[in-house]
C-alpha cells in the first residue's frame, strides 16, 4: 500500500554473528596466511618436543596428549593475535563497531572463527602425533574429536577477549601469553588428561569427569566473554 522505502532493519545477534564469521572466514580463505602459519608452527613444535626429549619413544608416547595440547596452545597465541591484527589494518575495527549490530556479535564471531581454525589445526595434528610419537587411539575417534572441539572452544573464548585487549596495547606479543597462559591452565589440564585417556585407555572411567570440567570452563568463559566483551571494544 504505502510507498515509503524500507527502513534499514536492525540485524539480529545470530545474523550479525554469521555475517561477521563469514567475512572472517572469507578473508582467511583468500589469504590462508593464518592457517598456513599456525600449521607449520604447530608441526615444528611437535617435532621440537621429540628432539628435546631425545629418541625415547616410551616417554613421547606417555606424554603425547600434553605435547599435542601445548602445540595447539602455542599456535593459538599466534592465531588469536592475528585475528585482531586483521581488523587494525585500515581501521576496520571502527567500521565493524559502527555497524548497527550487537557488539557481542563481534565476540561470538571472532571466538567461533578462532575455534574453527584451532579445531582444524588439531585435526591435522592428530595423524602427525600418531606418526611421530607412536601412539594409537584406544577408545574412539569420537571422544578425541569431542575433546578437541571442547578444548579449542575453551582456548578461544578467553583468548578472544584477551587478544582484543592486547592488540591495542604496547608489547602485545608479550601481553597475550602472559594473560592467557595462567588462565587456561584448567582447560589445558583437562584436555591433556582426557587426550591421554583416549590414547592409553580409560580403565577407571575418568574421561567423563574431565569432559565435565572442560564443559564447565567453557560455560563460564563463553558467558563472561559474551557479557564483558562490549566493554573492551567501546571507545
Amino acid at each position, binding site marked *: 500500500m504505502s510507498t515509503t522505502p524500507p527502513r534499514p532493519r536492525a540485524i539480529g545477534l545470530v545474523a550479525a554473528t554469521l555475517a561477521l564469521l563469514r567475512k572472517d572466514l572469507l578473508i582467511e580463505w583468500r589469504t590462508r596466511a593464518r592457517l598456513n602459519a599456525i600449521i607449520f608452527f604447530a608441526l615444528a613444535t611437535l617435532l621440537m618436543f621429540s628432539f628435546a626429549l631425545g629418541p625415547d619413544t616410551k616417554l613421547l608416547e606417555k606424554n603425547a596428549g600434553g605435547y599435542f595440547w601445548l602445540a595447539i596452545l602455542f599456535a593459538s597465541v599466534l592465531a588469536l593475535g592475528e585475528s585482531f591484527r586483521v581488523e587494525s589494518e585500515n581501521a576496520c575495527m571502527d567500521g565493524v563497531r559502527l555497524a548497527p549490530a550487537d557488539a557481542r556479535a563481534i565476540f561470538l564471531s571472532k571466538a567461533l572463527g578462532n575455534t574453527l581454525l584451532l579445531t582444524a589445526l588439531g585435526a591435522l595434528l592428530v595423524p602427525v602425533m600418531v606418526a611421530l610419537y607412536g601412539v594409537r587411539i584406544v577408545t574412539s575417534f569420537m571422544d578425541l574429536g569431542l575433546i578437541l572441539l571442547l578444548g579449542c572452544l575453551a582456548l578461544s573464548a578467553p583468548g578472544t577477549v584477551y587478544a582484543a*585487549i592486547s592488540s591495542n596495547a604496547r608489547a602485545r606479543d608479550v601481553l597475550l601469553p602472559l594473560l592467557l597462559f595462567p588462565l587456561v591452565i584448567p582447560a589445558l589440564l583437562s584436555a591433556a588428561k582426557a587426550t591421554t585417556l583416549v590414547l592409553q585407555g580409560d580403565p577407571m572411567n575418568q574421561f567423563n569427569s574431565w569432559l565435565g570440567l572442560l564443559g564447565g570452563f567453557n560455560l563460564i568463559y563463553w558467558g563472561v566473554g559474551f557479557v564483558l566483551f562490549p566493554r573492551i571494544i567501546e571507545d
Partner: protein
Amino acid sequence: MNKFIKWGLLVLALGLLGAGWWLGLAWAPPDREMGDVQRIMYVHVPLQWMAMLAMFINFVAAVAYLFKASWKLDSAAEASAEIGLVLGTAGMITGAIWGRPTWGVYWSWDPRLTSEAIMLVTYTGYLVLRRFVEDPEKRATWSAVVAIIGAINLPIVWFSVRWWRSLHQVQSSPRTVDPEMVLPLRVSAFGMLFITLFFMAVRYRQALAERQAEVALPDALPGDVPMSASHNPSKVA
C-alpha cells in the same frame, strides 16, 4: 584520611605485629611434630590471609568499576592488586622456607601451592597490562575485565588441581591449631590487617594522584573529584 589516623594505623599495626610475633616466638608452645620451625606460621598465615583479602578487594573494585566508572575504584583496584601481589609473594617465600624443613622440599605441586603460583602469575599479568596501556580510561576498563576473568579462574584452578592430585597422591598437611597458638596467630593477623590497610591507603592516594595527573579533564568521569579539590587530598581518601 586524617594524618593521625594514618600514622596511628601504622603504629598500631607495628605494635600488634611485634606483640603477636613475640607471643609466637616466646610464649606459644612449639609444635609437637615440627618443633620451633612451626613458629613461622605466625608470619606466613597472616600474609596469606591478607593477600586473599587484597585480591578480593581488587575483584570487588573491578566489578564496581564496570557498573559505575570512577577513578577512585580504579585506584583502589590498582592499589589492592599491587599489595596483594607483594603479600602473596612474601607468603609464598615464607611458605617455601617452612616447607624445606617439614616436607623436605621448597616447592611441591600441591593444590594449594599450585593455585597460589597461578594467582601470582595472573596478577602479575594484570599489573603488566596496566603498565602497557597509556589511555587511563581504557586501562581502567580493560584491567577491570582482566581482573574479573582472572578472579573467576582462581576457584576453578583450586578445584581442578585438587581433583587432579586426588587421582594420584595427596601431599597435604592438615594442622590442628592449639588454643595457645590461636592467640599469637590472631594478634599477628590483626597486625597484618592494619599494616595492609595502611599500605592500601598510601598506595591508593598515590594511584588517585597519578590518575588525576593523567586525565586532562578532571571531570571526565561522573562521580569523580574535580581537580580543584585535589588541594585537599584528605577528602579523597
